[in-house]
């Protein structure tokens, strides 16, 4: 069981993680990946059909964005609630 304040701190920490620690390197990776010479990128995307790099990283990024939205919604709920223990 955690107090309301403790849970708020957890959610803030998780939001910070998702929005900064996770999102920044993913965006940077995708940016760098798109700068790879087209020949190399084609090789990566087509020689090994089972490995779709951009698709996989985008999926991680999109789910990270979704985590951020879920955490924000939870934080809103906790802040607005009278419940003191979770």
């Amino acid at each position, binding site marked *: 069981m955690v107090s309301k304040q403790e849970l708020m701190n957890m959610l803030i*920490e998780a939001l910070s993680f998702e929005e900064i620690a996770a999102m*920044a390197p993913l965006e940077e990776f995708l*940016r760098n990946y798109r700068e790879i010479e087209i020949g190399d990128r084609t090789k990566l995307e087509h020689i090994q059909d089972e490995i779709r790099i951009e698709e996989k990283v985008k999926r991680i990024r999109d789910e990270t964005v979704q985590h951020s939205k879920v955490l924000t919604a939870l934080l809103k709920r906790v802040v607005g609630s009278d419940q003191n223990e979770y």
Partner: protein
Amino acid sequence: METKARDLYDSYLQKVKDHTIANSLSLIHDQEIGHMKLASEVITTIRKYIPDHFERKIKESLVDYLEKEGLVDFDDTSTVLISSDVEKYWKTNLAVLKYLVNQKKLKCIYITVNKPSFSLVEAFKREEIDVNNLYFVDCTTVGTEDSRKIFVKPESLSDISIAVSRLAENISEKKFVYFDAISTLYIFNPSDTVEKFVHYLIPKLKADKIGLILVAVKDEIEKKSLTVLTTFCDSKVEL
């Protein structure tokens, strides 16, 4: 990174007993484990086919980016609202700070509502943002205060304004306030209270010759509130 995420959510799940919250955290936790697998596959493939990829450093042209986004004329009485998708939000923060703090050499009073300032400083250092030009009003109140950092609860809007004034008093150079994110303030306060606060803050900062950038994450704010904030500001940048 993903291991850290898994450990973070593991520790939460051991403590939180509320079923609804725990279920949501558990879903995120499970997805983080999937991310570890995907990331590992990606890294293995890249190392195999393009071994020198990780040596490459590609610099983004920030000036080009910001010229398009209307921040070139930003000065110490400007008030700009940046409305961003959550996907672009962090990139936007970095780009604006690199431009205004590193290139234009403005001092920045950074109001952070939901990210501890110590974690921001670490992230900014990695991105080569000059953290010596940053001062913080930290509404998470996590960590310790010092001469460049004041803690304020996000519900205490007048205290935020006082903290900005206290920090600004000790900065003689040109400066601006960066509000990250005004939309998060709506979580802790009623809409009309936030809007009255912004309505009070803008002329006060203009009189003190302090620029202002308000960042709003679109998913976190009602359309009506975004419109109200837009009318208060000199310009709006939509990303």
